[in-house]
């Protein structure tokens, strides 16, 4: 034992030293455009969000590098430069993500970062991105606090939508669909996302239909998986509609367990993140379940050249339909490409970060979800509409589709700059333009 140890000691120390002092990776001076991609590769959010978004990223980046993406994105890579990626797992909490973000900026010397599903991570990253002056495109996180806390962003952009929009849209859809709506019940995961979603939805529905009763508010813990007690509580409270911002395995478990117990027989439920499991329900969800995709993404994306191309390409590589996280990732990459190319002026160069930030601000670009305008938060937040529809399963073709889709324009569901989502709802949506 002593002998082994005497060998082991220097080896282990040398190894530690080698890890500690190995030279930083070469800078992106190799004529490529280096992008850091941060998304969940492990943990509960990897399955429903992380993996589809990474699939989408790989697909779009490979196609861009081969110059196969339809117009107006025909130019190879980003501005004619091949895209090189550094992939980072978002799992592990905000302080680790700050550490890894700094590594991306200073060790990997990336030209831009695209990523972040968790709202907590987005909140932690935004000030660091500003400090390091690194172009950062947040593709999925939904917290309304992002640009409320970082009031004057320069380098941080969000191409995904604010979660308040999901819930304002859901409330409008329920009213417009002419359902019986005397009372609502709520079941949310007990963490910031659930609290915020219900806060926005309950405020919006009370504003749109005064006198709506809330029968029960259930807050099971995150990743609980078993909802027997909550389903009983929801059933006995006899609401007309159940609202839930559940996602991932929790959402699927709730729908399966609730459906088996007849929870959805006499009433409907609205699931703001429901679309991400469209193909996974396999007929085990009730027809008529109202689902959303957090914007015009996934099954709700409009037909255009880009979305058709993206759907076909995704289906052939991942053997399933792209869900909304894949669309949102594709949108972030296309937005970055559009901004860089607009800033560069001529192909083959990487423009200065200040230039990219300036051209990204207020940019209007074509995406897999239609035209995106960076028209909120002083040009740093995308403005897009939202759509809701009903789940419909066709047993013959073994395929789920969405029926009775209704879309709302961005101006109808998005608070204008200078007011918070909560205040805007409370004031009765002043300035909303709905058709």
């Amino acid at each position, binding site marked *: 034992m002593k002998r082994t140890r005497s060998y082991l000691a220097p080896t282990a120390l040398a190894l530690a030293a080698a*890890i500690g002092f190995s030279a930083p990776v070469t800078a992106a001076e190799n004529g490529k455009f280096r992008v850091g991609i941060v998304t969940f590769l492990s943990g509960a959010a990897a399955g429903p969000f992380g993996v589809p978004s990474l699939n989408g990223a790989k697909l779009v980046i490979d196609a861009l590098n081969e110059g196969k993406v339809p117009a107006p994105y025909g130019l190879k890579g980003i501005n004619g430069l091949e895209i090189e990626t550094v992939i980072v797992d978002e799992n592990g909490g905000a*302080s680790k993500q700050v550490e890894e973000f700094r590594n991306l900026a200073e060790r990997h010397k990336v030209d831009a970062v695209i990523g972040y599903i968790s709202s*907590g991570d987005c*909140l932690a990253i935004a000030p*660091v991105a500003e400090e390091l002056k690194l172009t950062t495109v947040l593709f999925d996180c939904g917290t309304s606090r992002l640009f409320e806390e970082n009031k004057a962003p320069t380098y941080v952009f969000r191409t995904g939508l604010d979660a308040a929009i999901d819930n304002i849209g859901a409330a409008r859809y329920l009213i417009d669909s002419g359902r019986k709506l005397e009372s609502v019940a709520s079941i949310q995961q007990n963490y910031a996302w659930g609290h915020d979603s219900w806060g926005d939805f309950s405020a919006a529905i009370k504003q749109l239909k005064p006198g709506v009763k809330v029968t029960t508010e259930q807050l099971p813990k995150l990743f609980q998986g078993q909802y027997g007690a909550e389903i009983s509580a929801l059933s006995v409270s006899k609401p007309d509609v159940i609202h839930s911002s559940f996602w991932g395995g929790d959402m699927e478990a709730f729908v399966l367990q609730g459906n088996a117990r007849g929870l959805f027989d006499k009433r409907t439920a609205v699931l703001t993140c429901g679309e991400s499991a469209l193909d996974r329900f396999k007929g085990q969800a009730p027809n008529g379940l109202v689902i959303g995709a957090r914007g015009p993404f996934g099954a709700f994306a409009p037909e255009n050249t880009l979305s058709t191309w993206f759907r076909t390409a995704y289906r052939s590589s991942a053997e399933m339909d792209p869900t909304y996280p894949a669309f949102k990732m594709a949108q972030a990459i296309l937005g970055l490409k559009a901004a860089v190319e607009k800033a560069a002026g001529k192909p083959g160069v990487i423009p200065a970060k200040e230039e990219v930030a300036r051209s990204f601000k207020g940019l209007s670009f074509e995406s897999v979800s239609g035209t995106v305008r960076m028209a909120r938060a002083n040009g740093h937040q995308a403005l897009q509409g939202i759509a809701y529809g009903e789940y419909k399963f066709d047993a013959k073709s073994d395929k789920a589709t969405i029926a009775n889709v209704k879309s709302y324009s961005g101006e109808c569901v998005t608070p204008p700059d200078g007011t918070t989502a909560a205040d805007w709802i409370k004031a009765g949506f002043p300035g909303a333009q709905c058709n």
Partner: protein
Amino acid sequence: MLKLDKTEIWLVVSALVLLASAFLLPNWLTFILTLALAKALVVQGVVIQMRAGLVSFGQGLFFCIGGYSVGMGGAFLNIHDAFVLVALGVAASVGVAAILGLLMTRYRDIFFAMLSLALSMILYGLIVKNQALGSTDGFNVHDVSFLGWMPAGEDQKLVIFVLTVIVAGGIAIALNRYMKSGLGGVNEAIKENEIRVEFLGLSPRWILYANYLFAAGISAVGGAFTALATGHVDPEMAFWTTSGEFVFIALLGGTSHVAAPFIAAVLFALVRTYALELAPHSWQMILGFVLLAIIVFLPKGLWSLVAGKRRAAA
């Protein structure tokens, strides 16, 4: 008057080397070192108690109190001076520990471990329920100043690194003195046989109580520096996995020397960041194997590399 022993000279030299290297190392590395040293302070808190036979699975409680004191001091009390904020964190943490310690010191073994874990999860639950504190998303730490001086960007990170090194060095020397004092030796005795210690005329309970308070204080320092460095606090700081990581690093380093937790924390951080880079899809596995290898080949922790060599030389 202040005579340094060999360990302390080494500690001072290491601290000076780290301070000098701050200007040579790339910023990302100093940032990793800042977080690792801050974390090591919490691990020291775990180790103090471990020497007396108590494993705290809830040291995240005090880590979180330290971090949130910094965040809330800035957001609600309008205190922006780093020194005041750290002091606030320590005061809050020791205050809480003074009350909880009365209960905690009555328990040993698994009961102590579980109770400490439960207490930290209570804090986690309270913060998650609190919308004003941003629930699970947490909130940012803005506009930190140092005695009226407000450095921006990289300078600020450098200042925090320098402060962390100095404070960690100071605490390490204090811990070393405590470990080598008579009272420090009693900790080992409490671990071996508490009743005998009582018959020697000492009160194990009050020694454990003092340990508990001291551990809470330095854990809060670690939490405060983490909050200052990352610029964000969230309830994950009090979550059981965070506390578990502290115990893990403690075992990784070993409990026999004051430098061990620092080395282990730095190694852990470096292995993690490079594992993440090499294998973004399976970095946890690399981390697991490295840690497993250390446990199998060095059951007394990394420090046995140094200790083993010394014995061989003697």
